């Protein structure tokens, strides 16, 4: 049951990205272009998503397990470190170049565009590089 619902949540997530316009890189870049003709749509996407998710997450913070008995696995780290800020900086630069972040990349991967296949391949290489560097660090 949990597996089926996880799949269903993923489908809803993907449909949400597609209907919100988040899956159109040109529109994302229009949102990031404050100095040009600015398209504020994506600010509303985020506001609506947080508006809906706020109460469920507030509930989840105080639970040890989910409604269907899965352990509640929310991040516990609190401190702001160089990795968090440096990583987010690199991510933001990449996002600003192509207008594609990981969710939309997955959501448009199967729409038959070589650009998305290339982007996702490079993104996965980046993630593998990170994992290799982490292993080296021990």
């Amino acid at each position, binding site marked *: 049951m*949990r*597996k089926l619902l*996880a799949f269903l*949540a993923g*489908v809803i*997530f*993907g*449909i949400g*990205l597609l209907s*919100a*316009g988040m899956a159109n*890189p*040109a*529109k994302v870049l*229009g949102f*990031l272009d404050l*100095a040009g003709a*600015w*398209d504020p749509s994506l600010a*509303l996407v*985020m*506001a*609506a*998503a947080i508006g809906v*998710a706020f109460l*469920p997450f507030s509930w*989840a913070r105080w639970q040890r*397990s*989910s409604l269907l008995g*899965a352990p509640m696995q929310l*991040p516990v*780290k609190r*401190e702001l470190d160089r*990795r*968090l*800020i440096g*990583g*987010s*900086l*690199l*991510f*933001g*630069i*990449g*996002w600003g170049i*192509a207008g594609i*972040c*990981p969710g939309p*990349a*997955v*959501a448009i991967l199967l*729409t038959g565009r070589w*650009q998305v296949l290339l982007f996702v391949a*490079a993104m*996965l290489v*980046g*993630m*593998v*590089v*990170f994992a290799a560097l982490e292993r080296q660090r021990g």
Partner: protein
Amino acid sequence: MSIDWYNFTPWSALAGGALIGLAASLFVVINGRVAGISGLLGSLLERGEGRGEKALFLLGVLLAPLLWQLFSSLPEIQIDNGWLALTVAGLLVGIGTRYGAGCTSGHGVCGLSRLSPRSLAATLTFMAAGFATVFVLRHLLGG
């Protein structure tokens, strides 16, 4: 700054955002997990625990456009970058989201919804970097 009223789509943005919020809510309430796409991808690559439900969530996102197409045609997807820019961008997004422990979904939606200070810092950082990058590429370099 001028608002691009022609491309501004408030209702579909709000509706799509609400669906994203609903999906993230389901995943945490039912599966006890944060719907952060970069984190889910990373843990699949690194063979972390509990991969079944994570993989199924990702599979749902992956198949969403195919299910969409059963009912209507896909919305516009426009990509203007060449191969070099896409490769550089993909590498930066892959490495950056793993070091930064999250992306637009994990930090921006789930993290802000649970009032995490780390996610707020990360979201402000990648937003600022995104704004700055587009400014440099479009208005300073004119490309």
